[in-house]
């Protein structure tokens, strides 16, 4: 670990800055990189080699596709139709919106999903005199669980998929089942602990009247954009094309990053959209944040820090595969509740690779443990995932203050339940595989 002290100090300083939000995430990561470049710890050519362009391309492509789809009004139509389908029944609001949130977050990023769902769910529940906080928290939690199901659903999965070379189908086949069970368990828990809030309203004429009026209001406010059907069709066809290409990755040999950017470019051309305006919708700071983190972790890896961490912490758990898998799952789960799961996953990937070298575990089960832990653990606290922070920020904008404790009261138990389900699933999978 010669010359590792400076990179470790810089990395820890960046982590502290990220955890306590002292500066912008991208600035924190890139400043760390720049310090190491200025001090000649690493050359700029070496630094560039550490960047995983596959992940950056996938994120850039998906952000572009989502930005164009949002412009088409598609998400507004979906959310208004779901609101209409609920007819004001609190239980239907919870279930139907959770299904939509889970599906959307599996194919879009979680922050986009909550940006679409939270305003309408607050409008609907607050307008009906229900407590919107419970619904906001539930949708943030479901978006994090739903995002776990696919390669493109959550940043930890994008990173794992790209850096390890796991396909879209492998994620779907291995994670959809536990994710569905986790969603069902989370919904049952929310319903069971708030049963008085889910009473049917169909015997109350005044409430039914208010709901109908509210739905009119929602239609009026959320469908105020003139829908260009051709634009919408082009957007949906391209999203469908992207999903087909993700699913057929083993046949086409096209990586998800290439697929996402390729489809985004087709969309830019066929929709003749104002590209400059659309590029402003891309979260460049997130992409720069990823770039900086890849370099920082790459330097730590090169200096032997990751190997040391793996040997002295994770490999001490012994060589029992069940213990190894559950350790990765629970450590990832708890750490992701308090730390940003993106840098955590980037740090953990080389560690897990080293663990696999000394203790091979079949069927990528250790990677699924990392994915489930990093994604589900984000639900543990309000700061565990970007979707939580964004949901709470939006709720505040609509006059609904959600405190750290308000969130934790619901999220801690649900996270523990989902991690227990994931433990059961991984143990069973390992038992079958061995």
């Amino acid at each position, binding site marked *: 670990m010669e010359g590792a002290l400076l990179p470790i100090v810089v990395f820890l300083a960046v982590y502290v800055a990220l955890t306590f939000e002292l500066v912008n995430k991208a600035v924190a990561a890139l400043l760390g990189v720049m310090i190491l470049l200025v001090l000649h710890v690493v050359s700029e050519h070496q630094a560039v080699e550490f960047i995983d362009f596959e992940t950056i391309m996938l994120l850039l492509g998906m952000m572009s596709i989502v930005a164009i789809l949002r412009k088409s009004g598609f998400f507004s139509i979906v959310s208004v139709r779901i609101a209409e389908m609920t007819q004001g029944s609190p239980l239907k609001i919870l279930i139907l919106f959770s299904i939509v949130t889970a599906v959307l977050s599996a194919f879009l990023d979680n922050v986009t999903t909550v940006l679409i769902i939270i305003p309408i769910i607050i409008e609907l529940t607050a307008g009906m005199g229900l407590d919107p906080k419970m619904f906001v928290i539930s949708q943030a939690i479901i978006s994090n669980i739903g995002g776990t199901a696919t390669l493109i659903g959550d940043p930890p999965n994008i990173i794992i998929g790209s850096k390890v070379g796991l396909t879209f189908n492998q994620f779907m086949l291995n994670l959809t089942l536990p994710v569905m069970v986790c969603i069902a368990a989370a919904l049952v828990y929310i319903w069971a602990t708030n049963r008085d809030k889910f009473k049917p309203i169909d015997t109350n004429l*005044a409430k039914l009247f208010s*709901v109908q009026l*509210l739905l009119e209001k929602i239609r009026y406010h959320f469908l105020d954009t003139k829908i260009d059907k051709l634009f919408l069709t082009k957007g949906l066809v391209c999203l469908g094309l992207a999903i087909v290409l993700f699913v057929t990755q083993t046949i086409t040999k096209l990586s998800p990053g290439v697929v996402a950017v390729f489809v985004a470019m087709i969309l830019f051309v066929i929709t003749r959209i104002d590209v400059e305006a659309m590029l402003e919708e891309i979260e460049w700071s997130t992409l720069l944040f990823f770039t900086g983190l890849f370099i920082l972790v790459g330097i730590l890896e090169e200096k032997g820090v990751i190997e040391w961490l793996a040997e002295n912490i994770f490999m001490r758990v012994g060589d029992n595969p069940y213990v190894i898998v559950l350790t990765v799952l629970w450590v990832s789960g708890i750490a992701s509740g308090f730390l940003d799961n993106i840098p955590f996953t980037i740090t953990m990937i080389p560690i897990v690779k080293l663990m696999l070298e000394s203790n091979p575990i079949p069927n990528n089960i250790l990677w699924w443990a990392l994915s489930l832990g990093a994604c589900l653990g984000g639900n543990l606290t309000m700061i565990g995932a970007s979707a939580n922070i964004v949901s709470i920020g939006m709720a505040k904008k609509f006059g609904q203050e959600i405190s750290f404790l308000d969130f934790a009261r619901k999220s801690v138990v649900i996270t523990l339940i989902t991690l227990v389900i994931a433990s059961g699933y991984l143990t069973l999978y390992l038992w079958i595989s061995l």
Partner: protein
Amino acid sequence: MKTEDREILCSLIRDHEDTVGSSRVTMMAIKAFIESIKQVRCRVEEVRELYSELSEAIKNTEPKVIPLIHLIEEFEKEIGEAPDASIDQIKDQAIRILEEKHHKIITKTGKVIEHGLTCISEGDVIIVHTISYDVTNMLKLAKEVLQKTFKVIVLKQDLAKTRRLIKSLSAAGIDMEIIPEYSLNHYIDQGNKVFMGALSITEDMKVISAIGSANIVSLCHLSNLPVYLFANTLKFSHRPSSQQRIHRKVESKTHGDLSFQLITHSHDTVDLKQVDFLITEDGIMDKTAISEFIKAPGKKRDSSGSIVV
């Protein structure tokens, strides 16, 4: 009905009226009534009580939505008593009556727009403050269907309200200029007419209109700019303005080291004398006709109590 449910209903109607105007909110409320009747599960002996409870709540919102009240009063009269009727028969009858009321307000509003279209001339520069959904549509029709060339000066107030108006006019390709409502003084020479809507016209000849409109109408009236008021006759109330129950809201505000209570009202009261043209479904009344109408000792009323012009 629980106080909480009543408050929700009241605030929904108020919020909606504020954005789309009283005619449109009346249409929406009647449609909502029909849908809720279809969905409600109750016993035959409960159904009339539920109708009357909801009708009472609708009639006592703050502010009172006069066209809706007139139609609900008609509904109450027509639904009557049918002791041997089944629940489905009572529901069907209620839905049929409400559908007729829905049709009635649509027809009246359509006719107001029809007459209103004749008030827009080539080259007009129309000042608008808070016009309803229907008057906005009238401007769109004038541009898109009648191909009239005119300009609109939009007085920006609460962006939530003005946003929709700007979007609609912009989508129709209407030439417009958006200015803060307090800057009207600088534009008064450019405009040649003012369009406004109303929640109601009360028995004491006051126009209950959107907040901010009293200042604008006064300034335009002083500057001899003709004011056009669009209101179907269902908006004529048989009660004085004091009984209109204009909503008064008290909010606690903090700005830096300053904390205070801000008091706002949902609507303004404008003297009908300041209106130059009144457009109803029956036609266009000019200033003379309006003043004769104001002076008339006893106004003719139709079966619902609304004044016949």
